[in-house]
């Protein structure tokens, strides 16, 4: 049997033309090959899972062969080669929109800003190259805002990413339960994300009011003295983290979608074996959504380092620059002080910081991210 067996192909296409045939098709494939495959292993949850994950970290060199064994083991070598080439050509073709999009819309402006970071570009002046001056002025402490804004931003990321992930993960788990009015509940928790951000920020400023705000009112019941929230240098970043977590409903929705990938049988297997909710979470849910956790973590870092809108609306950087986020610093430099060249340098410093964190996360991912259907590239 060859891969491009014509009759087979026609068969499939004729099947497809019948409406409603996609599912049965998938179904038959699934039952044919899936049953004796991994699902059965996973269903006897626990130790296996871990083992599977570990097995999933093969040496880089042997992957192509591994993969080809599974896929094309029964083919002659030349055909294998052809199939490879075909896969590669199609793969690049499929990815072409994104590659083109990146080259056209992203790479050019990125390189332009990199070049500008070595100039004194101010939008309306004659451009002059200044070497590393923009970068040196940042690191030698001449700029009164640089180190401050880096500290503030790191603090924010360190708080908001773990908090946001945990909160929305558990929210998603709750939202995935069989409850009445589930849609309404989900909408309610997603509402802050939907509403225009100006509206949500206004509400939070009211909640944070030290005298009349709801938060201090509630704390009063617990006998906790009034907090200054966004009014104090110590409280302002945690307060903004609170609002950031509140409007990060997208994290919840991503988790919710990720949770749909967990076969119910696996969870039931835990029940049968007498496992409790914690076991389910630890051995099934978390590993199975680890790819979503990975996604949310990376995006949390990328977006967290660039946060700008809420602090701009709520504190404008105050008090005493204690909420002067890196993105705001950049914005001011670029548009209020019209030093676009320096702003580009500021941006590229952040780029490198984010790149390092993202890179480390990617490097660590084989240890904790589990992909059921990972196909390694070569």
């Amino acid at each position: 049997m060859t891969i491009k067996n014509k009759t087979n192909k026609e068969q499939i296409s004729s099947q497809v033309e019948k409406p409603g045939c996609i599912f049965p098709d998938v179904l038959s494939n699934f039952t044919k090959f899936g049953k004796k495959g991994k699902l059965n292993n996973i269903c006897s949850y626990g130790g296996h899972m871990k083992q599977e994950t570990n097995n999933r970290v093969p040496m880089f060199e042997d992957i192509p062969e591994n993969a080809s064994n599974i896929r094309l083991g029964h083919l002659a070598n030349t055909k294998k080669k052809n199939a490879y080439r075909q896969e590669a050509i199609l793969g690049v073709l499929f990815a072409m929109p994104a590659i083109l999009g990146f080259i056209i819309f992203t790479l050019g402006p990125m390189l332009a800003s990199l070049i500008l970071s070595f100039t004194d570009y101010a939008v309306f002046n004659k451009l002059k190259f200044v070497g590393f001056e923009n970068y040196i002025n940042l690191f030698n402490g001449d700029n009164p805002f640089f180190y401050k804004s880096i500290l503030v931003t790191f603090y924010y990321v360190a708080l908001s990413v773990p908090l946001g992930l945990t909160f929305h993960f558990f929210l998603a788990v709750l939202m995935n339960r069989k409850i009445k009015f589930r849609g309404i509940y989900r909408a309610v928790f997603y509402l802050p994300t939907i509403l225009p951000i100006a509206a949500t920020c206004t509400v939070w400023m009211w909640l944070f009011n030290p005298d009349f705000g709801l938060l201090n009112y509630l704390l009063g019941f617990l006998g906790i003295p009034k907090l200054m929230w966004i009014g104090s240098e110590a409280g302002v970043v945690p307060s903004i983290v609170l609002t950031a977590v509140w409007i990060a409903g997208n994290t919840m929705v991503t988790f919710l979608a990720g949770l749909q990938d967990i076969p119910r049988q696996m969870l039931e297997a835990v029940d049968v074996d007498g496992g409790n909710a914690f076991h389910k979470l630890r051995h099934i849910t978390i590993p199975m959504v680890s790819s979503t956790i990975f996604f949310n973590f990376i995006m949390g870092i990328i977006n967290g380092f660039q946060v700008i809108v809420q602090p701009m609306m709520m504190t404008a950087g105050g008090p005493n620059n204690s909420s002067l986020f890196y993105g705001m610093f950049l914005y001011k430099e670029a548009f209020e002080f019209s030093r676009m060249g320096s702003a580009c340098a500021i941006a590229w410093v952040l780029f490198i910081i984010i790149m390092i964190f993202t890179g480390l996360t990617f490097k660590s991912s084989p240890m904790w991210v589990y992909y059921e259907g990972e196909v390694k590239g070569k």
Partner: protein
Amino acid sequence: MKSRFMEKISIAQVLTYILLTVGGIIFLTPFYWMFRSSLMDQGQIFEMPPIWLPNPIRIDNFKEALTIMPFNRFFFNTAVIVVFATAGVVLTSSITAFSFARMRWPGRDKVFICLLSGMMLPQYATLIPTFLGWKFLGAVGTNLPLIIPSWFGGGAFYIFLLRQFYMAIPKELDEAAYVDGAGYFRIFVQIILPLTKPAIVVVILFSFLHYWNDFLAPVIYLNDVSKYTLTLGLALFSGMYNAQWNLMMAASAVVAIPAIIVFLFGQKYFVEGISITGLKG
């Protein structure tokens, strides 16, 4: 044994309801606050301690708000952008992500990192060069700069998201189809897409909300008020020195309604059974 099992579930259920209801009330406060503000006059909104029930109820705010902001026109403008952009995002990001997740080609992972890196440079640094690019193409003042990029992969965010979901699908599924002689495109359309409906819904939802609430790009690329989107319309209510909060809240509430409806429809797809599990169980 069985009754104890049931009991456990019901306690868990009750706890869930309590948690969700309390949390829900907290999360609902801003919406309620916004809504009641939209029915008040300027002075009442900020009164402390807060007024919970507006009295008198000023429905006229809505009328006034929607007069200042030509709602129908802005709605139409926004809808055009949202529909075309979201279509572009879904169609191109899904096939691209498929390639990055389940096909092998040289340099794939490096290219992917390149794509991701596009999100790591703050947009204010690339704003001017990007603007100049569109200017060069003569597209400033039209909604093309807002729509066209979505047809080129839709942005690394969506590709990354879908890639994660695609990678979570057991390999056996497409291998089987592959052995049966199906091509990659067919595998993508017939197996991968149906299995990742929730993820596709997430992409639609996020993309909808993104373009619906986007502010910076429209403000930069649209020159003519008659081409403005709803979010820009909201900015009409705040001047240099003052803002008409009650009208702005009324308009915000109206602007949020379509988004809420889209979410309510979309979230129905977050049900076990659409995804892989349902096929087997």
